[in-house]
């Protein structure tokens, strides 16, 4: 289907079902139950899952395929956000032109940065991208204040021109973002027994975009172009010796992944028309690296998993506090309960980053393929136990 083989089609369908049914899947617990805090099915969080998924997919096209580790990808996300908000200020509140402009501008920006940074590879490339991103961040904070509004961040105001729209609604407030009249924040709530499911227009826009770009990334992975990028990763020198100029390929990959980041930034601004410089800071770039590696760099589904995983646990872990912990471990004897809570305490709430850091290190050390490799290993192990009786000699899997 769609020019994909059977396996990829299945994966695309699985992702499609998961994203489209996310309001159900992420809301497994009734609203009033004690477990309701683990529900993630509210629009704001679901949007973040999907937007960071797009960001990570784009990063993976660069890092997973070519092995170029960019430490400045958040700059493109920031540029995308700024351009989208400017579109809202100047043109109209329709999200389509805003997202298009975000993609185009961040693509151009990526072309510029990529052209310079890709002259070097390895660690130098990482540091160059880091330097560029940090430079853009500093500029956004200081000199470019007329464009970026500095520390406050770019916001909509009542006296923006909005040529094709209205500066202010009839009741004098700032208009909201919409897709040809369909408000992004409009949410349809469905109550089934004790459950309440929320269907948000903005989320579904993001989800559809995610599916489109996921499909695109599958096509890129399976194309001759993707093959070329993988060749760059495995041995660039050999490529050069065979008389092939790898620069256009890596540059194309860089620009594509920059446009993905810009798309994510544009969507972010469409959901909530704000843009701040902190989105470009290098810790933000680090976050997308974490997502991709944690999920599994170089795999198709990995980055999406990683993004969802990090954003979900970030949200859940930050909400857990000592009282919640005491409730959980209430079945233990008092002394033991206090002790367990004491041990777990540093890792929850504000300590979420500590957990994330440790998890990330463990993954890099023991599981370089990320969650996807972990899943594969478990599957293999289960299969291996089943087949043990049939044949003692393990068959070698063909290398992917």
């Amino acid at each position, binding site marked *: 289907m769609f020019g994909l083989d059977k396996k990829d089609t299945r994966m695309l369908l699985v992702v499609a079902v998961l994203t489209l049914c996310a309001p159900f899947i992420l809301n497994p617990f009734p609203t009033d139950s004690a477990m309701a805090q683990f529900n993630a099915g509210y629009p704001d969080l679901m949007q973040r899952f999907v937007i960071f998924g797009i960001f990570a997919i784009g990063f993976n096209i660069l890092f997973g395929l070519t092995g170029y580790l960019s430490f400045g990808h958040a700059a493109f996300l920031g540029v995308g956000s700024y351009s989208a908000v400017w579109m809202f200020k100047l043109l109209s509140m329709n999200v389509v032109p805003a997202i298009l402009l975000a993609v185009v501008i961040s693509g151009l920006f990526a072309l510029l940065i990529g052209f310079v940074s890709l002259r070097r590879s390895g660690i130098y490339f990482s540091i*160059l991208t880091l330097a560029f991103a940090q430079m853009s961040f*500093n*500029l956004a904070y200081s000199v470019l204040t007329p464009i970026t509004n500095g520390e406050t961040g770019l916001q909509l105001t009542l006296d923006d021109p909005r040529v094709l729209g209205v500066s202010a609604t009839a009741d004098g407030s700032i208009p909201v973002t919409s897709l040809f009249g369909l408000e992004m924040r409009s949410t349809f709530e469905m109550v089934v027994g004790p459950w309440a499911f929320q269907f948000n227009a903005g989320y579904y826009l993001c989800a559809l975009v995610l599916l489109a770009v996921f499909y695109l990334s599958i096509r890129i992975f399976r194309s001759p172009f993707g093959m070329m990028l993988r060749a760059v990763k495995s041995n660039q020198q050999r490529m050069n010796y065979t008389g092939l100029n790898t620069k256009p390929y890596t540059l194309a990959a860089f620009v594509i992944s920059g446009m993905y980041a810009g798309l994510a930034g544009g969507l972010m601004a469409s959901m909530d028309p704000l843009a701040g410089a902190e989105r470009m800071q290098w810790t933000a770039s680090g976050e997308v690296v974490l997502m991709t590696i944690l999920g599994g760099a170089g795999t198709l589904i990995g980055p999406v998993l990683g993004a969802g995983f990090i954003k979900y646990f970030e949200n859940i872990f930050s909400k857990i506090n000592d009282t919640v912990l005491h409730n959980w471990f209430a079945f233990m004897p008092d002394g033991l309960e206090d002790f367990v809570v004491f041990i777990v305490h540093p890792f929850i709430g504000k300590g979420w980053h500590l957990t994330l850091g440790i998890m990330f*290190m463990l993954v*890099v050390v023991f599981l370089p393929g990320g969650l996807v490799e972990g899943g594969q290993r478990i599957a293999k192990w289960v299969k291996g136990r089943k087949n043990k009786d049939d044949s003692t000699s393990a068959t070698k899997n063909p290398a992917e």
Partner: protein
Amino acid sequence: MDAILLQILNGLDKGSAYALIALGLTLIFGTLGVVNFAHGALFMIGAFCAVTVQRILNLSYEVVDETQKDFLGNALKVKTSYVESWFGPEMGGAIIDWAVPIAIIFAIPIMIFIGFVMERGLIKHFYKREHADQILVTFGLAIVLQEVIKYFYGANPIQTASPEALSGVANVGALFGMDIVYPVWRIVYFFFSVVIIGGIFSFLQFTTFGMVVRAGMADRETVGLLGINIDRRFTIMFGIAAAVAGLAGVMYTPINSPNYHMGMDFLVLSFVVVVVGGMGSLPGAVLAGFMLGILEAFASMNEIKSILPGIDQIIIYVVAIIILLTRPRGLMGRKGVMEE
């Protein structure tokens, strides 16, 4: 002329911090071939060593002093620190006052120990893996160290004062017959870093140990074949590099109140410094550190800012980009080191 000298001074103290961190980074890179993203965290830990020492020295107990009354007529509770009660008020007060320099004594073994643990426990396993993996795992480690510090010390900057005698300003211009007033501690910081840098260089240059290390940097395999346990020496060098970063952090606390992410802020710049100086070149790292510090100071002069607004924010990065593109090896980079 005054303004120029003042900017050079400004550049020197920032430059010394860059140079010290970059020196440690280069030591690790030159010996072990590992790109250490956790080096900024070591700088930060050093700074928190100073905070800890100051807190320990200030530990105190309360006594009810019958001779003094508060405004209600009750006996006043007076806090006396243990140090003061042991050494007498004068001596004890001096010790508390000099907490930051005293922290150096404690910071050295602590930092060397942390360096050993890091190298033996984690980084050892990453020699054979790609640079990207090394970057990633040390980046993860940096996050963990940062969060641990945040857990114990909170997220707010902690003010740490320099000794009373060194906290004022001095007229440095008097030597040249000019009038330049400058904080004393920053001058101390500069001289401190010069001493440390000189110490490291002479250690490498004039001791047998240093000679072996330099030989190992040039050709690790051959040195190993000569029957020298080069790995152990490199581990020790890692500890020393960690100590250098830590000391830079200890002495920096009075200049800038330490908070848990100060390391990350310095790290990005130090990487730029290392790249500009040339990967694996120790003199390059020091030279580039001071050079970029001074450049940054000049760029933040109002006269220059009025011509090129915002140049002070980006000058270092612009210089780095220009250098990388025109002299990919950096200012003093050696041939064959990280050519790829």
